[in-house]
Protein backbone atom coordinates (compact mmCIF):
# COMPACT_ATOMS: atom_id res chain seq x y z
CA UNK A 1 0.00 0.00 0.00
CA UNK A 2 1.05 3.59 -0.65
CA UNK A 3 1.41 5.82 2.39
CA UNK A 4 1.76 9.59 2.24
CA UNK A 5 3.71 11.12 5.10
CA UNK A 6 3.46 14.82 5.89
CA UNK A 7 6.35 15.57 8.20
CA UNK A 8 7.09 18.72 10.18
CA UNK A 9 10.49 20.12 9.25
CA UNK A 10 12.51 22.74 11.04
CA UNK A 11 16.21 23.44 10.95
CA UNK A 12 17.59 26.40 12.86
CA UNK A 13 20.65 26.41 10.62
CA UNK A 14 19.00 26.86 7.21
CA UNK A 15 17.04 29.96 8.19
CA UNK A 16 13.74 28.63 6.80
CA UNK A 17 10.59 28.85 8.90
CA UNK A 18 8.99 25.59 10.08
CA UNK A 19 7.15 23.83 7.28
CA UNK A 20 5.88 20.40 6.25
CA UNK A 21 7.49 18.11 3.66
CA UNK A 22 5.53 15.36 1.99
CA UNK A 23 7.01 11.95 1.28
CA UNK A 24 5.43 8.92 -0.33
CA UNK A 25 6.35 5.43 0.82
CA UNK A 26 5.16 3.27 -2.08
CA UNK A 27 5.47 -0.23 -0.68
CA UNK A 28 4.39 0.02 2.95
CA UNK A 29 2.50 -2.78 4.66
CA UNK A 30 -0.31 -2.43 7.15
CA UNK A 31 1.78 -4.07 9.87
CA UNK A 32 4.66 -1.62 9.40
CA UNK A 33 5.44 0.66 12.32
CA UNK A 34 5.37 4.41 11.77
CA UNK A 35 9.02 4.26 12.84
CA UNK A 36 9.70 1.91 9.91
CA UNK A 37 8.22 4.50 7.54
CA UNK A 38 10.38 7.25 9.03
CA UNK A 39 13.47 5.05 8.69
CA UNK A 40 12.47 4.38 5.08
CA UNK A 41 12.22 8.11 4.36
CA UNK A 42 15.51 8.85 6.09
CA UNK A 43 17.30 5.94 4.45
CA UNK A 44 16.05 6.31 0.88
CA UNK A 45 14.57 9.78 0.36
CA UNK A 46 15.98 12.44 2.69
CA UNK A 47 18.96 11.71 4.90
CA UNK A 48 18.59 15.06 6.66
CA UNK A 49 15.31 14.06 8.35
CA UNK A 50 15.98 14.08 12.09
CA UNK A 51 14.18 12.12 14.79
CA UNK A 52 15.16 10.24 17.93
CA UNK A 53 14.95 6.48 18.19
CA UNK A 54 16.79 3.83 20.08
CA UNK A 55 15.33 0.45 21.07
CA UNK A 56 12.35 0.51 18.65
CA UNK A 57 10.40 -1.72 21.05
CA UNK A 58 8.52 0.76 23.23
CA UNK A 59 10.95 0.54 26.13
CA UNK A 60 13.41 3.43 25.79
CA UNK A 61 10.73 6.06 25.12
CA UNK A 62 12.89 8.14 22.79
CA UNK A 63 10.61 8.30 19.74
CA UNK A 64 7.58 10.09 21.18
CA UNK A 65 5.93 12.18 18.48
CA UNK A 66 2.58 13.58 17.43
CA UNK A 67 1.08 11.28 14.81
CA UNK A 68 -2.17 12.41 13.20
CA UNK A 69 -2.72 14.83 16.10
CA UNK A 70 -2.12 12.38 18.92
CA UNK A 71 0.98 11.50 20.92
CA UNK A 72 2.39 8.04 20.30
CA UNK A 73 5.69 6.23 20.35
CA UNK A 74 6.47 5.78 16.65
CA UNK A 75 7.75 2.29 17.48
CA UNK A 76 4.43 1.20 18.99
CA UNK A 77 1.92 2.38 16.41
CA UNK A 78 1.23 0.34 13.29
CA UNK A 79 0.00 1.78 10.01
CA UNK A 80 -3.24 -0.18 10.36
CA UNK A 81 -3.83 1.32 13.85
CA UNK A 82 -4.15 4.77 12.25
CA UNK A 83 -6.78 3.65 9.74
CA UNK A 84 -5.60 5.98 6.99
CA UNK A 85 -2.92 6.21 4.33
CA UNK A 86 -2.33 9.91 5.07
CA UNK A 87 -0.08 10.33 8.10
CA UNK A 88 0.98 13.66 9.58
CA UNK A 89 3.96 13.53 11.91
CA UNK A 90 4.94 16.45 14.14
CA UNK A 91 7.17 16.93 17.18
CA UNK A 92 5.52 16.65 20.61
CA UNK A 93 4.01 19.96 21.75
CA UNK A 94 5.09 22.26 24.55
CA UNK A 95 8.85 21.72 24.31
CA UNK A 96 11.22 23.75 22.09
CA UNK A 97 11.92 22.11 18.73
CA UNK A 98 15.63 21.63 18.06
CA UNK A 99 15.38 20.05 14.62
CA UNK A 100 12.52 18.38 12.73
CA UNK A 101 10.97 15.90 15.20
CA UNK A 102 13.60 16.39 17.91
CA UNK A 103 12.62 18.53 20.89
CA UNK A 104 14.65 19.86 23.80
CA UNK A 105 13.77 17.50 26.65
CA UNK A 106 15.62 19.52 29.31
CA UNK A 107 12.54 21.38 30.66
CA UNK A 108 10.81 18.00 30.97
CA UNK A 109 13.74 16.47 32.88
CA UNK A 110 13.98 19.52 35.15
CA UNK A 111 10.36 18.99 36.19
CA UNK A 112 11.11 15.31 36.70
CA UNK A 113 14.10 16.12 38.93
CA UNK A 114 12.08 18.68 40.90
CA UNK A 115 9.92 15.98 42.53
CA UNK A 116 12.93 14.10 43.98
CA UNK A 117 12.42 10.88 42.01
CA UNK A 118 14.75 8.69 44.02
CA UNK A 119 14.61 6.58 47.16
CA UNK A 120 15.12 8.61 50.33
CA UNK A 121 15.41 7.07 53.75
CA UNK A 122 18.79 7.89 55.24
CA UNK A 123 17.70 7.53 58.89
CA UNK A 124 16.03 4.17 58.54
CA UNK A 125 18.41 1.36 59.45
CA UNK A 126 17.71 -1.86 57.66
CA UNK A 127 16.98 -4.47 60.33
CA UNK A 128 19.03 -7.29 58.88
CA UNK A 129 21.46 -5.05 57.07
CA UNK A 130 20.41 -6.54 53.75
CA UNK A 131 17.02 -5.41 52.47
CA UNK A 132 13.85 -3.48 53.25
CA UNK A 133 11.00 -5.95 53.41
CA UNK A 134 7.79 -5.13 51.55
CA UNK A 135 4.72 -7.29 51.07
CA UNK A 136 3.32 -7.95 47.58
CA UNK A 137 0.23 -5.88 48.54
CA UNK A 138 2.39 -2.92 49.54
CA UNK A 139 4.31 -3.21 46.28
CA UNK A 140 1.07 -3.42 44.32
CA UNK A 141 0.01 0.00 45.63
CA UNK A 142 2.40 1.83 43.30
CA UNK A 143 3.01 -0.87 40.69
CA UNK A 144 1.26 1.08 37.93
CA UNK A 145 3.49 4.14 38.23
CA UNK A 146 6.71 2.11 38.11
CA UNK A 147 5.99 1.50 34.43
CA UNK A 148 6.83 5.05 33.33
CA UNK A 149 9.59 5.26 30.69
CA UNK A 150 9.82 9.09 30.65
CA UNK A 151 8.86 9.38 27.00
CA UNK A 152 6.99 12.66 27.66
CA UNK A 153 3.89 11.58 25.71
CA UNK A 154 1.71 12.45 28.71
CA UNK A 155 3.22 15.80 29.68
CA UNK A 156 3.27 17.07 26.11
CA UNK A 157 -0.37 16.10 25.55
CA UNK A 158 -1.51 18.07 28.60
CA UNK A 159 -3.31 21.37 27.84
CA UNK A 160 -2.22 22.80 31.21
CA UNK A 161 1.41 22.15 30.26
CA UNK A 162 0.88 23.77 26.85
CA UNK A 163 -0.56 26.83 28.58
CA UNK A 164 2.27 27.14 31.08
CA UNK A 165 5.47 25.13 30.78
CA UNK A 166 6.23 25.70 34.44
CA UNK A 167 3.58 23.11 35.41
CA UNK A 168 5.47 20.01 36.59
CA UNK A 169 3.31 17.86 34.33
CA UNK A 170 1.84 14.38 34.57
CA UNK A 171 5.12 12.48 34.11
CA UNK A 172 6.75 14.17 37.11
CA UNK A 173 3.65 13.51 39.23
CA UNK A 174 3.59 9.86 38.16
CA UNK A 175 7.22 9.49 39.20
CA UNK A 176 6.56 11.26 42.49
CA UNK A 177 3.61 8.90 43.04
CA UNK A 178 5.93 5.93 42.57
CA UNK A 179 7.93 6.99 45.64
CA UNK A 180 5.18 8.66 47.70
CA UNK A 181 3.19 5.42 47.84
CA UNK A 182 6.25 3.23 48.44
CA UNK A 183 6.06 2.54 52.17
CA UNK A 184 9.83 2.00 52.42
CA UNK A 185 10.50 5.61 51.43
CA UNK A 186 10.63 8.54 53.87
CA UNK A 187 10.42 11.47 51.44
CA UNK A 188 6.66 11.55 50.83
CA UNK A 189 6.15 14.73 52.83
CA UNK A 190 8.82 16.59 50.88
CA UNK A 191 7.38 15.50 47.54
CA UNK A 192 3.79 16.28 48.52
CA UNK A 193 4.80 19.76 49.66
CA UNK A 194 6.55 20.33 46.31
CA UNK A 195 3.47 19.13 44.41
CA UNK A 196 1.24 21.32 46.57
CA UNK A 197 2.77 24.44 45.05
CA UNK A 198 0.94 26.50 42.44
CA UNK A 199 2.68 24.69 39.56
CA UNK A 200 2.11 21.28 41.14
CA UNK A 201 -0.89 18.96 41.03
CA UNK A 202 -3.47 21.76 41.22
CA UNK A 203 -2.72 22.74 37.62
CA UNK A 204 -4.19 19.39 36.55
CA UNK A 205 -7.68 19.97 35.12
CA UNK A 206 -8.44 16.27 34.71
CA UNK A 207 -8.45 16.45 30.91
CA UNK A 208 -7.40 12.76 30.71
CA UNK A 209 -5.16 13.48 27.67
CA UNK A 210 -2.21 12.04 29.58
CA UNK A 211 -3.98 8.76 30.27
CA UNK A 212 -5.02 8.51 26.61
CA UNK A 213 -1.49 9.23 25.40
CA UNK A 214 0.49 6.96 27.73
CA UNK A 215 2.08 4.15 25.68
CA UNK A 216 2.50 2.13 28.88
CA UNK A 217 -1.20 2.33 29.77
CA UNK A 218 -0.55 3.93 33.14
CA UNK A 219 -3.68 5.32 34.82
CA UNK A 220 -2.07 8.74 35.10
CA UNK A 221 -5.15 10.75 36.01
CA UNK A 222 -5.85 8.29 38.82
CA UNK A 223 -2.26 8.62 40.07
CA UNK A 224 -2.65 12.42 40.08
CA UNK A 225 -5.95 12.04 41.97
CA UNK A 226 -4.15 9.82 44.54
CA UNK A 227 -1.60 12.58 45.09
CA UNK A 228 -4.30 15.26 45.39
CA UNK A 229 -6.11 13.11 47.93
CA UNK A 230 -2.92 12.55 49.95
CA UNK A 231 -2.34 16.32 50.05
CA UNK A 232 -5.88 17.21 51.08
CA UNK A 233 -6.34 14.43 53.65
CA UNK A 234 -2.75 14.27 54.97
CA UNK A 235 -2.94 10.49 54.63
CA UNK A 236 -1.12 8.12 52.30
CA UNK A 237 -3.38 5.12 51.87
Amino acid sequence: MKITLKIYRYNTEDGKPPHYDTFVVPDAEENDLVLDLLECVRGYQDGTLSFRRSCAHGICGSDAMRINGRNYLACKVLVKDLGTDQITIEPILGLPVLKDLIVDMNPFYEHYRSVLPFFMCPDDPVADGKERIQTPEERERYDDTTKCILCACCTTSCPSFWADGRYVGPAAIVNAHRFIFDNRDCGAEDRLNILNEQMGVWRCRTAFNCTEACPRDINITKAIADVKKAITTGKIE
Partner: protein
Amino acid sequence: MTTVPEHGYTRQVKVKPNYETIAWQWMRYSAVLLIPLVWFHVLLQDVIVGVHRIDLDYVQLRWATLGWRVYDVLLLGFTFAHGMNGLRQVLNDYIHNEKPRRVVAWVLLLGWAVITAIGGIAIIAGVRK
Protein backbone atom coordinates in the same frame (compact mmCIF):
# COMPACT_ATOMS: atom_id res chain seq x y z
CA MET B 1 12.22 13.05 55.32
CA THR B 2 12.01 13.03 59.05
CA THR B 3 10.00 9.99 59.94
CA VAL B 4 10.83 6.35 59.52
CA PRO B 5 7.96 4.75 57.58
CA GLU B 6 5.62 2.37 59.29
CA HIS B 7 4.91 -0.80 57.42
CA GLY B 8 1.42 -0.96 56.00
CA TYR B 9 -0.62 1.33 53.82
CA THR B 10 -1.80 4.26 55.86
CA ARG B 11 0.77 6.84 56.79
CA GLN B 12 0.17 10.34 58.09
CA VAL B 13 1.91 13.27 56.40
CA LYS B 14 1.96 16.97 57.12
CA VAL B 15 1.26 19.07 54.07
CA LYS B 16 0.82 22.77 54.69
CA PRO B 17 -2.42 23.94 53.04
CA ASN B 18 -2.01 26.93 50.77
CA TYR B 19 -4.23 29.13 48.62
CA GLU B 20 -4.23 26.66 45.73
CA THR B 21 -5.26 23.76 47.97
CA ILE B 22 -8.11 25.79 49.45
CA ALA B 23 -9.25 26.99 46.00
CA TRP B 24 -9.24 23.42 44.67
CA GLN B 25 -11.19 22.14 47.67
CA TRP B 26 -13.63 25.04 47.34
CA MET B 27 -14.36 24.03 43.73
CA ARG B 28 -15.20 20.50 44.85
CA TYR B 29 -17.21 21.33 47.97
CA SER B 30 -19.15 24.14 46.28
CA ALA B 31 -19.92 21.79 43.38
CA VAL B 32 -21.34 19.22 45.82
CA LEU B 33 -23.58 21.91 47.32
CA LEU B 34 -24.56 23.19 43.91
CA ILE B 35 -25.94 19.85 42.78
CA PRO B 36 -29.01 19.92 45.10
CA LEU B 37 -29.35 23.72 44.95
CA VAL B 38 -29.33 23.99 41.15
CA TRP B 39 -31.26 20.81 40.38
CA PHE B 40 -34.03 21.62 42.81
CA HIS B 41 -34.17 25.15 41.41
CA VAL B 42 -34.45 23.83 37.83
CA LEU B 43 -37.02 21.23 38.85
CA LEU B 44 -39.17 23.77 40.66
CA GLN B 45 -38.94 26.68 38.23
CA ASP B 46 -38.94 24.84 34.92
CA VAL B 47 -40.93 21.68 35.61
CA ILE B 48 -43.22 22.09 38.63
CA VAL B 49 -44.07 25.78 38.17
CA GLY B 50 -43.10 26.17 34.49
CA VAL B 51 -41.23 29.09 32.95
CA HIS B 52 -44.41 30.61 31.43
CA ARG B 53 -46.03 30.97 34.84
CA ILE B 54 -43.14 32.86 36.40
CA ASP B 55 -44.25 36.46 36.75
CA LEU B 56 -44.04 39.20 39.36
CA ASP B 57 -46.88 37.68 41.36
CA TYR B 58 -45.02 34.36 41.54
CA VAL B 59 -41.77 36.07 42.60
CA GLN B 60 -43.68 38.03 45.25
CA LEU B 61 -45.26 34.82 46.53
CA ARG B 62 -41.91 33.00 46.56
CA TRP B 63 -40.00 35.77 48.29
CA ALA B 64 -42.70 36.17 50.90
CA THR B 65 -40.98 33.25 52.62
CA LEU B 66 -37.58 33.99 54.18
CA GLY B 67 -36.44 30.41 53.50
CA TRP B 68 -36.75 30.88 49.74
CA ARG B 69 -34.86 34.16 49.91
CA VAL B 70 -32.01 32.47 51.81
CA TYR B 71 -32.09 29.63 49.24
CA ASP B 72 -31.75 32.13 46.39
CA VAL B 73 -28.88 33.97 48.10
CA LEU B 74 -27.05 30.65 48.61
CA LEU B 75 -27.66 29.76 44.97
CA LEU B 76 -26.30 33.11 43.85
CA GLY B 77 -23.26 33.00 46.15
CA PHE B 78 -22.18 29.43 45.39
CA THR B 79 -22.76 29.44 41.63
CA PHE B 80 -21.06 32.80 41.24
CA ALA B 81 -18.07 31.81 43.42
CA HIS B 82 -17.73 28.50 41.58
CA GLY B 83 -17.77 30.34 38.26
CA MET B 84 -15.35 33.06 39.39
CA ASN B 85 -12.85 30.47 40.64
CA GLY B 86 -13.16 28.67 37.31
CA LEU B 87 -12.55 31.96 35.52
CA ARG B 88 -9.45 32.51 37.68
CA GLN B 89 -8.13 29.10 36.65
CA VAL B 90 -8.73 29.86 32.96
CA LEU B 91 -7.04 33.27 33.24
CA ASN B 92 -4.06 31.62 34.98
CA ASP B 93 -3.42 29.79 31.72
CA TYR B 94 -2.86 33.12 29.99
CA ILE B 95 -1.24 35.19 32.74
CA HIS B 96 2.24 33.91 33.46
CA ASN B 97 3.54 36.54 35.87
CA GLU B 98 2.88 36.20 39.57
CA LYS B 99 1.93 39.83 40.29
CA PRO B 100 -0.82 40.18 37.63
CA ARG B 101 -2.12 36.77 38.70
CA ARG B 102 -2.55 37.98 42.27
CA VAL B 103 -4.21 41.19 41.08
CA VAL B 104 -6.67 39.21 38.95
CA ALA B 105 -7.42 36.82 41.83
CA TRP B 106 -8.17 39.74 44.17
CA VAL B 107 -10.28 41.56 41.56
CA LEU B 108 -12.34 38.41 40.99
CA LEU B 109 -12.73 37.84 44.74
CA LEU B 110 -13.81 41.44 45.31
CA GLY B 111 -16.13 41.29 42.28
CA TRP B 112 -17.73 38.17 43.67
CA ALA B 113 -18.10 39.69 47.15
CA VAL B 114 -19.61 42.96 45.89
CA ILE B 115 -22.08 41.38 43.45
CA THR B 116 -23.08 38.70 45.97
CA ALA B 117 -23.54 41.34 48.68
CA ILE B 118 -25.69 43.54 46.41
CA GLY B 119 -27.72 40.52 45.30
CA GLY B 120 -28.02 39.22 48.85
CA ILE B 121 -29.15 42.58 50.22
CA ALA B 122 -31.66 42.98 47.38
CA ILE B 123 -33.12 39.51 47.92
CA ILE B 124 -33.13 39.43 51.73
CA ALA B 125 -33.80 43.05 52.66
CA GLY B 126 -35.17 44.60 49.49
CA VAL B 127 -38.46 42.74 49.32
CA ARG B 128 -41.43 45.06 49.97
CA LYS B 129 -44.20 43.48 51.93
